[in-house]
C-alpha cells in the first residue's frame, strides 16, 4: 500500500522508556490534570483563606482558576509536551532522529491517534474527531433549547440552567466553528498542497490541538460549579456577578484563544517558509490562501481576547474594577475588547470555508477556477475590513453615536469582497457541465444559505433597522445562516470530499443524498421561522416569551428536531461507512488534479519522498494537467 520508501531506513521497533511514556501519554495526561487541579485548587483556596479570610474559600475564584491552570499544565506535561523545552533548558542533547520519527508517528499503528504526535495528518484527523464532538454536544444543547421554547414558560429547564444551556451551546459552537475547517483540513492538507513534508513547528501544531480537549472539558465542567448566565459574549459586569461557573467559561475561552493564535502563527510560518521551490505565492491553491489570510486574523485578534479575559479573571479573583462602573471601570471596555476580537473571529470561521469551497468547486465544474487572483483579493479584503467593523455590535449601546455612520459603512463595505466569492462561483460554473456529486450539493446549499445570511446582514448593518432587529432572533437566525448554513455545510462537503483521502474509506452513499436534502430543508425551515420570530420582536436568550409568538416557535422547534435528526444521520453514515463497515474508496474518486490526490493513500508519513519543484495551479481542467508531477509514485489519473 505504501508506495513510498521512507527517506530513512525504518526505525527499530525496540521501544525506549521515552516512547513507552509517550504511548501512555493520554492516561498520564489525565492523571496529571487531576493532580494539577487538586494542587492548584488547594493552593489558591488556602491563599485566599489566608489573605482575605473568606469563609467559603473552597469555592473561591482564585482556587478554581489556579486549579484549572495547573490541571492544563499537568495534562500537557503528562502528554509529554514539556520534555522538549525542559531538555533544551538543561542543554540535553537533541532527540535522535529515530525518536523524532517515532514521535512523528512512524511505525505507530492506531495508537498514534491517542498520543502526542507531530504528524500533521494525524493531527488533522484528531481535529476532525474533536470538532465533530463539539458540534454534536453543542447540537444536543440546541435540541434542549428548542424543546424548552416549545412553550412560553419554563418547562424543560429552570431559568438558571436554561441560561447555562444557552451559554454552553453557543460557546461550544464558537469553539467548534473557529477550527471547523482550518483544524482538520488546514492541518491535514496545507503542507501537502504546498509540497512540504511537515509543518514549520510540529510540536506547536500538536499543542494547538491538545489545548482543545481541556478547553471543552473545562467549559462543560461549569455545570458542577453552578453554571454561568452570560451566554458566549460574557458581558461584564454580569460576569463579575456570576458564581464560580463563570471561571470555566473564562479559562476555556482563554485556552481557545491561545490555540487560535498559535495555530495562526504556525500556519503562516509554514506557508511562508515551507513551500516547495517552484511554488510562488501566486501558485498556491486557493484553500491555502484562505488559511493564510485566516491565520493572520487569528494571530492578531486572539491576543485582544486573551488580554480581556485576563482582566476579567483578575476582576473576579481580586475584586479589581476593570469592568465595574462603581469602581471606575466600564462595561463598554469589555464590549469593545471582546468585539474587537469577536468580529475577526467570525471571519476566522468563514474565510477557510470560502477557501475550501472554491477549492472543491472546479473539481465538480471541470473548469479552471474563474478569477483566481480576484478571489484572493476578495478574501484578503474581508480579512482587512473585519478589523474595522466591531462597533456594529454596539449600535444600541449608547456608545459613540457619532461613529455609527462609519461602522455602518465599513460593515456594508464587507459585502463587496464577499460578493467577489459569488462572482468567482458564477464564473466557474458558467457554461460548465457540473457534476452533481454529493459534495457539490452541499456546496450549492452553501451558496444559497450564505446568500440569505448576507442579505439579513444588510438589515443589521443599517442602524435604523438595527434598532428594531438588534438582539432579536433575527440576529440569531442571521449568524446561524452564516455559521451553520455556510460553514457547517462547507464542513460536511469537505468531509464527504476529503474522507477518501484522509481515511481511504468513502461515505458517499444514496442515503447521504437523502441526508443532504433533509438537512437542507429542515435547516431552512428552522431558521426562516426564527427570522420571522425575530422580526416580530422576540429577543434572544429568554426562557419566557410573549404567547403570540408560540406558533412560530413551535414550527422552529419541530424543524429543529428534524435538523438534529438529519445531522445525527450524517454522523451515523460517517461512522457506519468509514469506521464500522469500511467501504473502500477508489483513488481520487472526484478526479481532482490537486497534488493531495496524487500522493498515495494512506499518505506516507513524510508525504513526499522527494519534493517536486515544478508546480502549477491545480485547476487546469481544460488541459487536464495535474498540479505537479510526482514521477513514478504518481498513480495514473483516471479520466480528466
Amino acid at each position: 500500500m505504501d508506495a513510498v520508501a521512507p527517506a530513512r531506513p525504518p526505525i527499530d521497533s525496540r521501544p525506549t522508556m521515552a516512547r513507552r511514556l509517550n504511548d501512555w501519554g493520554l492516561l498520564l495526561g489525565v492523571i496529571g490534570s487531576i493532580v494539577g487541579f487538586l494542587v492548584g485548587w488547594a493552593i489558591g483556596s488556602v491563599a485566599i483563606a489566608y489573605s482575605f479570610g473568606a469563609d467559603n474559600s473552597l469555592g473561591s475564584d482564585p482556587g478554581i482558576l489556579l486549579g484549572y491552570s495547573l490541571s492544563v499544565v499537568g495534562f500537557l506535561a503528562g502528554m509529554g509536551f514539556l520534555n522538549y523545552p525542559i531538555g533544551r533548558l538543561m542543554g540535553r542533547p537533541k532527540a535522535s532522529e529515530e525518536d523524532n520519527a517515532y514521535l512523528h508517528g512512524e511505525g505507530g499503528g492506531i495508537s498514534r491517534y491517542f498520543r502526542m504526535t507531530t504528524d500533521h495528518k494525524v493531527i488533522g484527523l484528531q481535529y476532525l474527531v474533536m470538532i465533530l464532538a463539539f458540534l454534536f454536544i453543542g447540537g444536543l444543547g440546541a435540541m434542549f433549547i428548542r424543546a424548552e421554547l416549545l412553550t412560553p414558560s419554563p418547562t424543560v429547564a429552570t431559568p438558571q440552567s436554561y441560561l447555562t444551556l444557552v451559554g454552553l451551546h453557543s460557546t461550544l459552537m464558537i469553539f467548534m466553528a473557529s477550527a471547523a475547517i482550518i483544524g482538520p483540513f488546514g492541518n491535514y492538507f496545507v503542507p501537502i498542497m504546498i509540497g512540504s513534508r511537515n509543518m514549520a513547528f510540529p510540536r506547536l501544531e500538536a499543542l494547538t490541538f491538545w489545548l482543545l480537549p481541556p478547553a471543552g472539558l473545562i467549559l462543560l465542567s461549569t455545570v458542577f460549579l453552578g453554571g454561568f448566565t452570560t451566554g458566549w459574549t460574557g458581558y461584564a459586569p454580569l460576569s463579575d456577578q456570576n458564581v464560580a461557573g463563570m471561571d470555566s467559561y473564562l479559562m476555556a475561552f482563554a485556552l481557545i484563544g491561545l490555540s487560535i493564535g498559535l495555530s495562526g502563527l504556525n500556519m503562516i510560518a509554514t506557508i511562508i517558509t515551507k513551500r516547495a521551490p517552484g511554488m510562488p505565492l501566486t501558485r498556491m491553491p486557493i484553500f491555502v490562501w484562505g488559511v493564510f489570510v485566516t491565520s493572520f486574523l487569528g494571530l492578531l485578534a486572539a491576543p485582544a481576547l486573551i488580554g480581556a479575559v485576563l482582566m476579567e479573571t483578575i476582576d473576579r479573583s481580586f475584586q479589581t474594577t476593570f469592568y465595574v462602573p462603581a469602581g471606575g471601570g466600564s462595561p463598554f471596555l469589555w464590549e469593545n475588547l471582546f468585539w474587537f476580537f469577536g468580529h475577526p473571529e467570525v471571519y476566522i470561521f468563514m474565510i477557510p470555508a470560502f477557501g475550501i469551497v472554491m477549492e472543491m468547486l472546479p473539481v465538480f465544474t471541470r473548469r479552471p477556477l474563474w478569477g483566481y487572483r480576484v478571489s484572493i483579493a476578495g478574501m484578503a479584503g474581508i480579512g482587512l475590513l473585519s478589523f474595522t467593523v466591531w462597533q456594529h455590535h454596539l449600535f444600541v449601546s449608547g456608545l459613540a453615536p457619532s461613529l455609527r455612520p462609519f461602522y455602518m459603512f465599513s460593515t456594508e463595505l464587507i459585502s463587496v469582497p464577499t460578493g467577489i466569492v459569488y462572482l468567482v462561483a458564477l464564473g466557474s460554473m458558467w457554461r460548465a457541465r457540473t457534476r452533481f456529486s454529493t459534495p457539490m450539493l452541499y456546496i450549492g446549499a452553501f451558496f444559497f444559505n450564505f446568500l440569505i445570511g448576507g442579505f439579513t446582514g444588510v438589515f443589521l448593518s443599517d442602524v435604523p433597522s438595527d434598532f428594531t432587529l438588534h438582539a432579536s432572533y433575527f440576529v440569531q437566525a442571521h449568524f446561524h445562516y452564516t455559521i451553520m448554513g455556510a460553514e457547517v455545510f462547507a464542513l460536511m462537503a469537505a468531509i464527504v470530499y476529503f474522507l477518501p483521502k484522509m481515511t481511504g474509506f468513502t461515505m458517499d452513499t444514496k442515503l447521504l443524498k437523502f441526508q443532504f436534502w433533509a438537512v437542507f430543508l429542515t435547516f431552512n425551515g428552522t431558521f426562516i421561522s426564527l427570522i420571522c420570530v425575530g422580526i416580530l420582536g422576540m429577543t434572544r436568550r429568554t426562557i419566557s416569551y410573549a404567547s403570540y409568538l408560540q406558533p412560530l416557535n413551535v414550527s422552529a422547534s419541530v424543524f429543529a428536531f428534524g435538523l438534529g435528526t438529519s445531522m445525527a444521520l450524517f454522523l451515523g453514515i460517517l461512522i457506519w461507512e468509514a469506521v464500522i463497515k469500511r467501504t473502500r474508496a477508489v483513488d481520487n474518486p472526484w478526479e481532482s488534479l490537486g497534488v493531495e490526490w496524487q500522493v498515495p493513500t494512506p499518505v506516507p508519513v513524510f508525504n513526499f519522498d522527494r519534493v517536486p519543484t515544478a508546480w502549477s495551479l491545480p485547476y487546469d481542467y481544460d488541459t487536464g494537467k495535474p498540479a505537479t508531477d510526482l514521477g513514478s509514485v504518481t498513480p495514473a489519473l483516471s479520466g480528466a
Partner: protein
Amino acid sequence: MRNRATAIRVLIGTWIVLAVAGDIGLGLAPMPPGLASNLASDESEVIRVLSMAGWPIFSGVLAGLFFTLIINKFAPSQSEVTAVELRGNSRLQATWIVTTVVLVLILATYGTVELAVEEPGGGITTVSAALPAPTSADQPLEVQVIAQQWWFTFRYPTYGGIETAQLVLPVGQKIEFNVTSLDVVHSFNFYALGVKADAVPLNDNQVTVTPTEIGTYRVQCTELCGLWHGNMAENTAMVVSQADFATWIQQQTALDAPVMKYLPPYSHTYEPDPAVYGH
C-alpha cells in the same frame, strides 16, 4: 445554441416577474415594528426600502447561480471558450466590483441620511434637575427608565420625580427616554415604538420618540442580564390620551406619597452610595 438563448430569455423573464411581484408584495405588506410612533414608522420604512432594494438582487443572484448549475444539463453551450476566458475576465470582474461598491455607497448614504433625519438615540448628557412640565407637544417630556435586576421602573422628573413600576405615556407628546441601569447592562426595548436602548450603569442613554397610537404594549429587556432576564418584561406599558395621562399622574403621585421623602433627587445616573455598598 438557439435553445440556450431561449433558456436565458426565460431566465431573465422569470427573474423580472419574480422581482416585480416580490417588490409589489413588499411594498404593500405591513412592515414591523408598525406605525405606533414616528420612530417605529421610520424604522419600518427603512426595513421596507431595504427589502425592496434587496429582493431583486437576491433573487437575481440566486436565479443566476442555479441557472448556471442547471442549464448546461439540457442546453450545453457549443461556443468555444479560450483558456484565458476560462481563467477570468478582468473587465467583468471590475464591473462587478464597481457595481457592488456603488450599491454599498447608496446603501450607506441612505442609512446615514436616515440617521441624520431621525437620530434614534445614544449620547450622554449632563445631570439636570427636575424640569417644568412640557407646554407644547414638541417640547420633550423627559421619562427616565431605570433598569435593575430584574425589573424596569420609571421616573417622571417633570411631575415631582415620582417613580412608577408601570410605563404610561401621553399620545402625540414628544418623549425623551433617559435609560440608565443600577447594576449590570440591560437593554430597554419598547418594540411597538421602535425604541431599543442599552441600559448601562452610570451611563445615560437617550432616545427621543413621539408615540402616535393609543394602546397597551410590551416592554422587555433585550440584553442578557442574569437569572430573570427572560421574565424582565411588562405587558402593561400604555400610550393614553393627554387627559387620561393627567389623571394617571395624579393617582401615581398619591400612591407614591409615602416613599417620596426617601427617593433620591432626580439625576440621569445613580451612583451607589459607597457608605452602604462598598465591595
